[in-house]
């Protein structure tokens, strides 16, 4: 009787030990894997451009590849954000409406407001 009990206990201990080890290894794995938020290369960054007083501010911005730029219209008149090369085009933005575009390629992207074409801006992607 005693022997059977000890075998059962031994199995239980081994199982517990195995389970603990497994958990530890999982934790070790989690700590060991490079996490995106602490990586040295540029993460999904964002950049804001404010539209106000018939102008884009800042007029020229420089961002890293993969950056998402968000334009917000703070003017009391609707505007649009249209790339001159046809790369991106927003619908008309009334006050407080936004438009976002993620720049996945390097280059210089001139854009303007198709309603008020004197309003121009540039996104430089490096």
């Amino acid at each position, binding site marked *: 009787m005693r022997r059977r009990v000890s075998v059962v206990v031994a199995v239980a201990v081994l199982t517990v030990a195995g389970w603990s080890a497994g958990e530890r290894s999982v934790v070790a794995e989690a700590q060991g894997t490079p996490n995106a938020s602490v990586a040295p290369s540029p993460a999904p960054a964002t950049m804001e451009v404010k539209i106000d*007083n018939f102008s884009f501010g800042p007029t020229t911005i420089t961002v890293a590849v993969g950056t998402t730029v968000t334009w917000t219209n703070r*003017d*009391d*008149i*609707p505007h649009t954000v249209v790339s*001159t090369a046809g790369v991106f085009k927003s619908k*008309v933005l009334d006050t407080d409406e936004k438009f976002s575009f993620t720049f996945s390629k390097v280059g210089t992207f*001139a854009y*303007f407001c198709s309603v008020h074409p004197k309003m121009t801006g540039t996104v430089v992607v490096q």
Partner: protein
Amino acid sequence: MFEKKKDEILHDHNHDGVDRRGFLKCMAWAGTGALCVMQGGVLKSYAMSRIAEMNLADLGGELSFAQISDSHMGFNKAANTDVAGTLKVAIDKINALPVAPEFLLHTGDISHLSKPEEFDAVAQILQSAKAKDVFYVPGEHDVLNDDGKQYLERYGKGSKGNGWYSFDKKGVHIVGLVNVMNLKAGGLGTLGSEQLEWLADDLKALKSSTPIVVFAHIPLWSVYPEWGWGTEDSAQALGYLKKFGSVTVLNGHIHQTMQKVEGNVTFHTACSTAFPQPAPGTAPSPGPMKVPAEQLRSVLGITDVNFVRGQHALAVVDSSLA
């Protein structure tokens, strides 16, 4: 400053019966509600307050129409939270003009965001106009999101291209032009080669004595390029109009009255029925200009145009809503 006594020809340099200085003085009075009429080679002005007493038909007026502009239906910011209300006031004012206009011209920015309900609201308000014929040209606010498809569906019947057309009324040839499509970055309004070719052809067979009226949204002369207030290729259009003895250009877009006389061409911009904009260069940008509520109606307005048969220029008269 305005000498009401001197309202007849003083100098006839071009021997055509038109005193340029007198005409310009008359046009300046127009802002206060004066009527300038050419009759028998003499340019006379009449205060609007006197018009009610006279019978304008006695003056020989033959064609009368009114221009409204920039109703921006759907705009609801501080500069005017009730653009439908001020449009109604404008229509009431037109209905009360001493000489009933035969038709209306709307020089664009009918809607604010090209929304169907905005166009519908304007149509509803215009039903109360006594003049049932309304002729439109689009503003940049009317062709958002869909390259002007909806504008053409509603207003483009009988027009060519992006909505240009012409028609005749009592011997006056009236041309509607579109200069708000295909705008280029950093640019001004544009007519485009297809429209210019059509215009040349449209004017070809007309006698030089035919009075011409051209209406388009963005000014066809260089009012203030820094704010986009001009049309890149209007010089070509004006070249085709050079042969005519009387050309009247009616525009909107800048939400204030402005006029210029150049040779036989009179350029005129109308007030908006929705909100005013600052004078060129007097503000950081050409956005809606807020004025004290009690002053709003005094900076909005309509334009009354009268053609006197056989005379040189059309009489163009602005009046504010208050």
